[in-house]
C-alpha cells in the first residue's frame, strides 16, 4: 500500500465556543475512496471545511502531499489540488452551466488543460453539455449536483472532497451519481473523500470507511468489513430506540433495493 496523500492528525475545530471536531485523525491513500459516515451534527462537514481552509483548526496538523496545509487560505488549498464539492450543490444560480464550469477552473490559466477538463466533464455528464447555455439555477436538483461535481473536476484536482452528493436526490439519481463517481475513481484514478449519511451507498463505493460521532472517529475499517458490521446502521443514524429502528428498516429496503 502506498503512502497516504492526505493525513489528518488530532484536528480540533470550533464554531465559536462549540467544539465541532474533537481530535480527528485519518489517512487517505492516493487512488482510493474514503467514506466518512455519521449522523447530523457529527462534524463531517466541519471536517471537510477544515481541510479546504474555509474553517481554521484550533489544533492539529493536516498534511497534503508532504506539506502542512492547516489554516491556509481556501484558494491556496485549491491550488494545491484539493477541491471541495459542497453540501447542497451551491452552484452559481444566475450563471450558465458553461460559466459555472469556467469558475471551477478559476485557479488555472492553462487554456488547453481547461478545454480538456471541460470535455472530460461533458463525457461523464452528457446532460451538462446539452444544457451548457442554461442558467444553473434553472437546472433540476440532480443536474445541479452533477454540475457541482463537474465544476469540482474543472480544477483538475488530485483529491475531491464530496459533501453529501446524495442529499435530496431520488434513489435512482443517487445510484446514477455514485456510478459516475466510481467510474471517475476507476478511469481517472481520482482520489476522493466522501461524507455521507447514506451509509450503504457510500460503503459500497469506498475502499475505506470512518464513522464519526459527536466530533470523534469511533470506528474505522476497510469498507467491505465495515459494511457487514451490524452496528453500522445505528452509528450512521445515531438513533438507538426500537421505534426508530423499525422505521429505519423500512427505509433501507426502499432506498437500496
Amino acid at each position: 500500500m502506498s503512502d497516504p496523500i492526505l493525513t489528518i492528525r488530532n484536528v480540533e475545530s470550533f464554531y465559536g465556543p462549540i467544539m465541532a471536531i474533537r481530535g480527528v485523525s485519518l489517512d487517505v491513500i492516493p487512488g482510493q475512496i474514503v467514506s466518512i459516515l455519521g449522523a447530523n451534527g457529527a462534524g463531517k462537514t466541519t471536517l471537510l471545511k477544515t481541510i479546504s481552509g474555509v474553517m481554521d483548526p484550533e489544533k492539529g496538523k493536516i498534511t497534503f502531499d508532504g506539506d502542512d496545509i492547516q489554516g491556509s487560505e481556501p484558494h491556496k488549498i485549491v491550488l494545491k489540488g484539493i477541491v471541495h464539492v459542497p453540501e447542497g450543490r451551491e452552484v452559481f444560480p444566475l450563471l450558465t452551466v458553461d460559466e459555472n464550469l469556467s469558475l471551477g477552473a478559476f485557479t488555472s490559466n492553462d487554456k488547453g488543460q481547461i478545454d480538456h477538463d471541460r470535455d472530460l466533464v461533458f463525457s461523464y455528464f452528457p446532460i451538462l453539455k446539452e444544457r451548457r447555455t442554461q442558467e444553473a439555477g434553472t437546472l433540476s436538483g440532480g443536474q445541479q449536483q452533477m454540475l457541482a461535481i463537474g465544476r469540482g473536476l474543472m480544477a483538475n484536482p488530485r483529491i475531491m472532497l464530496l459533501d453529501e452528493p446524495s442529499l435530496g436526490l431520488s434513489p435512482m439519481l443517487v445510484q446514477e451519481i455514485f456510478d459516475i463517481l466510481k467510474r471517475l475513481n476507476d478511469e481517472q484514478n481520482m482520489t476522493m473523500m466522501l461524507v455521507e449519511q447514506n451509509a450503504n451507498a457510500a460503503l459500497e463505493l469506498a475502499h475505506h470507511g470512518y464513522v464519526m460521532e459527536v466530533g470523534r472517529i469511533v470506528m474505522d475499517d476497510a469498507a467491505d468489513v465495515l459494511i457487514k458490521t451490524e452496528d453500522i446502521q445505528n452509528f450512521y443514524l445515531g438513533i438507538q430506540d426500537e421505534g426508530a429502528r423499525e422505521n429505519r428498516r423500512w427505509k433501507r429496503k426502499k432506498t437500496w433495493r
Partner: protein
Amino acid sequence: MDNAQLLISGLANGCVYGLIALGFVLIYKATEAVNFAQGDFMMLGAFVSIGLTNTEYMGLPFWLALPISLGIMGALGYLLDRLIIRRLFGESQTAVVILTIALGFVIRFAAGLIWGHEPQTLQNPLAGKEVRFGGLVLGMEDVAVIVVTVLLTWGLYVFFSRTKLGLAMQGASQNQLAAYYMGIPVKRVQGFIWALAGVVAGIAGILFAAKGTVDPTTGLLGIKAFAAAVIGGFGSLPGALAGGLIVGVIEPFASRYIAAGYSQIAPYALLLAVLIFCPNGLFSQVLVKKV
C-alpha cells in the same frame, strides 16, 4: 420639440443618477452591504477632478487630470474596503450602513474644508459648445454624458460577462461560499469591486461637474440615485441604469407639467408605486434556490 429637449436633458441627468446607482448595486451585489456614501463619493470625484484641472487650483491639462482623478478615486475605494470595511467582516449589515452614512458626513466636511462651500464647475474643453440636431440645441456636455455612460455600461457588461475576473465577481456575489470553494480569493475580489465603484463614482462626478456646478452637499443626490437603484431592482446593473434614466427623465417633465411644490416628490412617488406594485423592482434578478 420642447418635450424632446426636456427628454435629452433628463436623460443626461439620469445618466449621472444611473452611474451612482451602478455604484450602489456593484457594492451591494459583491458584499451585500449598501454604501450610503456613494453619492458623496461622486461629489468627491467631482472635486478631485476640479482640484486637479481648474486654473485656480493645480491647473493640470484636462486629459491628464482625468486618469489621475479616476486613479485616486479607485485607490480611495480600495483603501476604504481594505482599512475599514474589511474589519467589519462578519458584523451585522447595520454596522456597515451606519459607517458609510458617517463616512458621507466626513467626506462632505472634508470637501468643504479643502475646496470651500461655493458651487464650482469643472473647466473642460466641452464647456459652452453646442450641437444642433434637427431643431434641437443640445449642450455638448449633455451629449458627452450620454455617450460616456453608454460606453461605460457596455464596457462593464463586457467585463462582467466575458472576462475571468468579471465572472469571478459575479460568482462571488451570487454564492460567496461556493466562490471560496472554487479558489476565488473573495476578499481580494471585493476590494477590487470597491475600487471599481470608486472609479464609477469618479466618472459620474466628472460628468456632473462638467455639465453643472457642484458643492459639498451635491452628494445628497445619492438619495435620488438610491431610489433609482431600488426602482431598477437592487442587484441588477442594467436595472440601476434604467432606474436612473427613469428618475432623470421624470424630473424635468414633472417640473414642467406639475405645480412647483409637488414636482420634487415625483421620483419618490414613483419609488413608492414600484415598491407597492413590483416590490422586487422592475428588472430584478431573483431566483429561489432549489433543494
